[in-house]
């Protein structure tokens, strides 16, 4: 396990107006690993994910992709770097002026020289991975929330990127689809060159796909270890989360 580090997050702080979201996050994600970030709603998991792909810039601290400090990159260089990324968003974030097919074909048409036939084949392949059929010509507005999420997932993996970022890919899906998406993520990360970071608050999913589980609590990573270590951890925030206890550090502020 002495793989080189793909993503390094060092002492990252981020606040929105007066709301302090990240308060000194440190996280190392080795190449080829599958990291799961857990935490309650609104603790800044998505904010952290957006820092990794440079959609947000830290107020303080640094994000490195391999050995590149994101903050030193020009817009054009950052754009080039992002071709290595695939990111799926919480609500799918499908372009609603484009059909499902055009959504998934968008990165393929833009960044590759595939023929129309190859693009179509790849789109169908991606849709098959998320178990969707005959939806190519539908518009996003005609899809259910869960379907949008799966299409968004399919779009994010279309280019076979080396770094995958999934923002709650299974939230709101039925158990079968949840298992299917988890299985797909697992399979994608079997490739030793693919690094994945998944946000979820579903324990089953986390155990299924994570090589490492990290817990974000009050703007910091309070736990980072294997699923087994997560199950054995005595860290109060982890224990409360794991045991679904309404009383504990997560709810302290409100009590």
């Amino acid at each position, binding site marked *: 396990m002495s793989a080189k580090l793909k993503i390094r997050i060092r002492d990252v702080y981020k606040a929105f107006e007066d709301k302090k979201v990240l308060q000194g996050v440190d996280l190392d994600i080795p190449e080829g690993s599958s990291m799961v970030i857990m935490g309650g709603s609104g603790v800044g998991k998505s904010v952290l994910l*957006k820092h990794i*792909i*440079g*959609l947000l810039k830290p107020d303080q601290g640094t994000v490195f992709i391999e050995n590149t400090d994101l903050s030193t990159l020009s817009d054009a260089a950052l*754009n*080039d770097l*992002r*071709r290595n*990324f*695939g*990111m799926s*968003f*919480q*609500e799918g*974030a*499908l*372009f*609603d002026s484009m059909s499902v097919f055009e959504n998934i074909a*968008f*990165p393929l048409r*833009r*960044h590759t020289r595939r023929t129309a036939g190859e693009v179509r084949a790849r789109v169908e392949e991606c849709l098959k991975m998320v178990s969707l059929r005959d939806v190519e010509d539908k518009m996003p507005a005609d899809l259910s929330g869960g379907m949008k999420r799966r299409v*968004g997932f399919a*779009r*994010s993996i279309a280019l076979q990127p080396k770094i995958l*970022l999934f923002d709650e890919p299974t939230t709101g899906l039925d158990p079968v689809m949840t298992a299917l998406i988890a299985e797909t993520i697992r399979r994608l990360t079997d490739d030793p060159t693919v690094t994945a970071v998944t946000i979820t608050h579903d324990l089953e999913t986390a155990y299924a796909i994570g090589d490492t589980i990290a817990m974000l609590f009050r703007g910091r990573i309070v736990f980072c270890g294997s699923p087994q270590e997560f199950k054995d951890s005595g860290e109060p925030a982890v224990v409360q989360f794991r045991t679904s206890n309404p009383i504990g550090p997560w709810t302290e502020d409100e009590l």
Partner: protein
Amino acid sequence: MKAVGAVDRIIIRLYEELGRFCIIFWKALFWTFRRPWDFREWLRQMARVGVDSIPVVFLAAFFTGAVIALETFEGFQRFHAEGYVGSVVSLTMLRELSPVLSALMVTGRVGSAYAAEIGTMRVTEQIDAFYALAADPIQYLVVPRMWASLIMMPLLTIMADATGILGGWLVAVGLLKANAVVYEQSTFQYLDMKDFFSGIIKAAVFGLILAVTGCMKGFYTKGGAEGVGKATTQSVVMASLLILLSDFFLTKLMFR
């Protein structure tokens, strides 16, 4: 930031808006000359701004021309100058009212829609998705909208010129029984090509203003559905004000 007073805040806001306007405009200009060009999207946007705005612009210009004829005819009659009504209608329409009114109508129809669309894309993370897919949303969203508006506004204005003059003619000759020959003569007698072109130039500038303002307000939307509503309203208010302000300065520049 604590020491910032109310006046300071207003000034900061003003410069912030100005800065954002310039950033969006500059980036759109930059991306105009870069591949890939999506001409289908350009045409789609041009149809939206141009073709779909024909009815409202037609009605607005027609009745404006008509009311100018109505007002001035009654007034000019008092000193027996009703022969000049045609000139008044054509001059005010071509130089001033066609471009301004068309721009205000299109701001309400299209500028607000730009803000709402792009604002919705912002709050549903579609803008982030563009960046995440290594594509620049300015290129896909702002460039076609800005050029569509800039190209179609002059065309709409030419139509408004014609319908305004038609409206005035119908009222003066049809309703108020003015002498048709005298009216038609006076319509074109004092008209210069410069009057026509100044209106066209204004229309192009207004088209740019309303599109960039709409896109800018959408692009910087914050805070869910409420934010989209705010962005839409603000885009209309801001674009309308900018159009009226720039109208004065453009006139001042072109007719010293």
